[in-house]
Structures are given as C-alpha cells and as structure tokens.
C-alpha cells in the first residue's frame, strides 16, 4: 500500500511540471500587454519599459519561467499586476468559499445520488426505474446557470424562502473572518443564528452546483449495482442465508461503490468549473469568479497561479480517490 502511494506521488511530479510550463506559456500567449493594463493606453514608452522591467517581462522567456518556478517552490506566487495584492493571500481568502460551496454540493450529490441509484437498480424494469432514469438524464442535461436562475426565481423571488445571493446576511450578522468558511466562522463567533443563515445561503448554490454530479452519481451507481446483482458472489451470499440488509451492504454496495468512487473524484473537476458559473449567479465570493475576472482583465499572475492551484487541487483529490479505491479494492492493494 505504501509503495502504491509513493508510486502515485512520483507520477504527480511530471504532471505538475508540465502543468506549470503549460500555464506559463499559455499566459504569455494571451493578447494584450500587462504594462498597458497597468499604465493605460497613453503611457510613455519609457514608463512602459520601466514597468516591464520591474515585472521581469523584459527578460527571456526561459528566465521568466525559472524565476516563476523559483517563486513557486518558495510558496511565492507573486502579486496581482492590477491590484498589487499578494496572490496567495487573495486565493486563501477566497478559496474557502469555493470549498464550502463545492463540499455542500458534492455531499448533497452523494447523499442523494447513491441511495437513488441503489433504489432504482433494485427496481430495474419497473416504472420507478424508468422515471428515475429519465429524471437523471434531465438532471445531467440542465446547465448549471439555467438551473441556478430557475432555483433563484422559484425559491428567492416567487416564494422568497431562501436568500438569493451572497454568503450571509451582512446587515444582521457581523462575523469576523477567521477561517473564511462562513459556517465555521459563525460558530467561532458564537453566532448560531449566523450559522443557520450561512447554511441557508448555501442551499440554492449547492443545489445548482450539485445537481449534475447527483445525476451522474445516481446513473453510475445504478449501472454498477445492476452489474453486481448478477455476480455469482451475490448468489453465494443469498445461499448462505444472510439477511437482505447484510447482502445489500456488505456484498452488493461494497463492490458496487468501487466505480462510483472514481466517478466522484472526476466530478471535482466539473465542480471547480461549475463554481465559476454558480459563483457568478449567486454573487458568491469564491475562486471561480476571481479567476474569471482575472482572465478578462488579463491579470497574468492571478491566472497562472489560480489555475495552477485549482489544477493541483483536482490532481490531489483524484490522488486521494485513487488511494481510497485501492483501499476498497484488495486486488489493487496487493498488486
């Protein structure tokens, strides 16, 4: 098992190196000159040159890359060309918002998707199964932004039972930022009302972001359970006279969840992408919207560091998923 983890960690190195190179080259391909962005169109040539020099943009590309990598290794991701704020600080401040939202979404997706998948699989061929299959197909076909808008319209405008944007009611609650997880900070501040309000703010964005993963998880669970139901060892389990509950949990689900685990890992990428849209619709101050704004403003430093960190998170989540897969599957653990 340790060997397996070490091998997987070693495999990460070329991927991360390639990623930094790709992102670096890519940001240099973007049209527009950061010096112009900073100084405006009417800046003098001398000033422009000065800015370029101070940003290191006058040096050859490979030197710029090494400088960038050197900074990376020391945990220095530079400063925004535009706001001059430390990118790491900005990221750390916004990232918890994205995590909070993504976690809520994926927990919702797993908590609903797996039971629904099992339920429809065990009733395959019935109208319950057919209905569930159609609903899940519609679920994966609704774009996040459309679903988000409709949820907002129904639950925040037509029937105003939930807040339509933001992370907390700023008028009624003042929550000092400690972890930047709003729910956690509310608890730290000893504001149970604020905690509940933060949760209420989470509901609609999490539903919007979690629906596609929910449908995907449900579909893969259903398919996987149906496969496992036909396995000989399930028949053996029944031949042993085990209780249905034991057969379902110990024999069917433990095997059926193997592919589901992998799919959950792959959903993280979609969540991070979807966060850009969700954060836009619900004015959620997270990383997704931050990077999007950086792309439109050509803030190189934020783009390259932000994308790198999101990719790093995706890679790490999938590493964890692979390890838990190996942990669940003895055939891989021992190979």
């Amino acid at each position, binding site marked *: 098992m340790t060997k397996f983890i070490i091998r997987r960690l070693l495999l990460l190195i070329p991927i991360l190196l390639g990623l930094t190179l790709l992102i670096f080259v890519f940001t240099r391909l973007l049209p527009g000159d950061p010096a112009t962005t900073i100084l405006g169109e009417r800046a003098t040539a001398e000033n422009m040159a000065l800015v370029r020099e101070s940003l290191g943009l006058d040096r050859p590309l490979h030197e710029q890359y090494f400088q960038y990598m050197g900074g990376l290794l020391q945990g220095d991701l530079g400063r925004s060309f535009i706001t001059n704020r430390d990118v790491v600080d900005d990221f750390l401040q916004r990232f918890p918002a994205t995590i909070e939202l993504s976690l809520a979404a994926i927990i919702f997706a797993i908590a609903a998707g797996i039971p629904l998948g099992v339920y429809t699989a065990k009733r395959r061929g019935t109208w319950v199964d057919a209905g569930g299959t159609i609903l899940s197909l519609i679920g994966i076909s609704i774009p996040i932004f459309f679903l988000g808008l409709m949820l907002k319209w129904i639950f925040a405008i037509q029937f105003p039972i939930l807040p339509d944007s933001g992370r907390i009611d700023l008028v009624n609650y003042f929550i000092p930022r400690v972890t930047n997880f709003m729910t956690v900070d509310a608890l730290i501040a000893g504001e149970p009302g604020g905690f509940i309000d933060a949760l209420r703010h989470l509901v609609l964005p999490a539903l919007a972001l979690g629906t596609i993963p929910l449908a995907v998880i449900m579909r893969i669970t259903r398919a996987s359970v149906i496969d496992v139901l036909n*396995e*000989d*060892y399930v*028949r*053996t*389990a*029944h*031949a*042993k*006279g*085990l*209780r*249905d509950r*034991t057969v379902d949990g*110990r*024999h069917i689900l*433990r*095997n059926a969840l*193997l592919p589901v685990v992998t799919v959950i890992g792959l959903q993280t990428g979609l969540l991070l992408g979807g966060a850009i849209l969700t954060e836009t619709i619900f004015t959620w101050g997270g990383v997704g919207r931050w990077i999007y704004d950086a792309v439109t403003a050509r803030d190189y430093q934020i783009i390259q560091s932000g994308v790198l960190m999101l990719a790093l998170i995706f890679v790490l989540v999938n590493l964890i998923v692979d390890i838990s897969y190996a942990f*669940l*599957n*003895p*055939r891989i653990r*021992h190979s």
Partner: protein
Amino acid sequence: MSRTAPDPEALLSVRDLEVTFGSGDRVVHAVNGISYDLAPGETLGIVGESGCGKSVSSLAIMRLLPKPAARVRSGSVILEGQDLLDLSDEEMRRIRGDQMAMIFQDPMTSLNPVLPIERQLTEVLETHRKLKRSGAVDRAVELLELVGIPAAKNRLRDYPHQFSGGMRQRVMIAIALACDPQLLIADEPTTALDVTIQAQILELMRTAVTERGTALILITHDLGVVAGMAQRINVMYAGHIVERATTDELYGRPRHPYTVGLLRSIPRLDEGRGELVPIQGQPPDLSRQIIGCPFADRCFNVLDRCREEMPPLEQAPSAADEHLVACWNPAEGERLVPSGFESELAS
C-alpha cells in the same frame, strides 16, 4: 413415482416441480414436473447436458432462482416434512446456509472479491449460530483446516484472489459446511478446475459428507464425476427426469436411449478403437411446445407413439427395483461398460 405421496423417511422430497423463465410470448419451460426423493446421508447425482434443467431445479429447491425472470409454476419441495415453497422469504432465509447449503461452479466468481475469507466464513456462523466474533473465528480456522487449507490461521485475512482455484473451492466447501447442513447441493463443483484438482475436491467432498452424514446432490454433466460418488443418479433431459437408478444399475444396464448415448460418448482408455459414438442432433428448444418425448428426434429406438405422448417415469421392465425410466421403448439394458468401470472413471 410422480403421483406418489412424499416418502416420510426421505430428507428431501421433490414433487411435480415445474419452473419457467420469461413471460409473454417467450416462455422457456426449464423444468417440467420432476419428482424424486433423497434419503438422509444419501448422495444423488443429477446428470445431463447444459440447459437440461439440472441447475435450475436445484436453485428452485434453494429458492435462489432469479426473480422475477424465473417462476416456480407448481410442485412442492419438502425438506423434513416442511414444504419450502410455502415458507416466507424470511423463514427460507433461516434455512439457507443452515439446514441446506450450496456450492457453485465457479470458485473464481463465487467468493466476494473485496472481503477477506475470514469474513465470508464467519458471517454464516454469526447469522445462523449466533456465535460471537471470536468464537466464529475459531470455528472458521477449524473449518479451513478441515477442508485442507494449509496454515489456515495465517490465511484468514487473505482475499479470494490470493488463493488458487482449487483452494477457493475448498473455502466454498468450508462455508457450505459451516453450519453442518443436512443437505448440500453442489452444482458442477469441479467443472472450472484443473483435472488433477478435480479428484482432490471430489475426495474432500466425499469424506466430508460421509463423516457428517450429510446428504449431497451432485449436479454435473460429467458421468465420470458422479460414478465414484453417488449412490443413485437422476438423468435429466429437457426438463424431465428420463431415468433414475442406483449408480451400479444405471451404468450397468442403462435403459433410456439418452443414457445409453451418454455412456457411449465417454472416451475410454480400455477401448481405443473409435468406439466413441456422439449423440446426433441438438436438444430441443424449450421455448416451444414439445409434443411427446423431447428426445424422440435424436433417439435410435424411436416409435410413432414417442412423438405423440410423453412417457411417464415408471419402473423399467425386467430391471432391478426402483430403476425408473421414462421411455416407450427402452433399450435392452446391455452392459455397455465392464463392471467396476465406475470406480475407474472416478479415479
């Protein structure tokens, strides 16, 4: 036989068991009203080609047929005076794994790949014997030693993929024997194994059932496998029992033309000169209505009557007692194989 009342002495009495698959315009008649008795401690061989209903009928006894695809149309399965087909699912569950157990064909896929074998053994004991975990583990070691797994104690935490095919089948046998069942059903237990391993597994099963007085139903397509094991043999064809006799009698004086065909098609070492006679043709399509004897089209003794009416399973003329055959024109009962051949086949 088929109309007689269940034998009170018998451990298991199957009467008029009929199983179909599918519904609507495509119904497969897999088992067509079979009846037999099994005495306590007896070993019964059920022999036939694939698709003859031998596995389906025994899954029906265990009530393990896939739902809702398969349906038991009629009949009764009486284990110790209790009709299993009348029991609730929960009552049946308590019997499975406890009073009756089953071993399947493919030991590669019949064990759960993600559970250590310890768990797969102890869960039976915990379910039926209400043993605590530690007691169940001790018993699991005993069982593994009993089925001949070397260093059993050290292998408890191993997973199925760490065992060879033969060893896995030993584990399956240990699981099946865990609660000392009165009836063990083994569905082609050696088919998936190497020839050398086959004999070892059969020997293990033979000693295990003899020592414990367990009744055994051994399902196989291989006449060599049952020869040395079974006291009595049912030959099945197209969902019917076509012949039933003691092993000696069946091998010595086969009466049904199908049985004769089966025995003729066994390769033999002592007759090297092209005596192999395959049975012509294919088994019938069981989704079609069959009028008369299903073997008629392939039979060397066929009469006109055979195509009109299915012969009942009755005492064969001029044969030993309880040699039953379902045939209008049974074979003479010539000795096809020299006496003592059964043990030779089995070795």
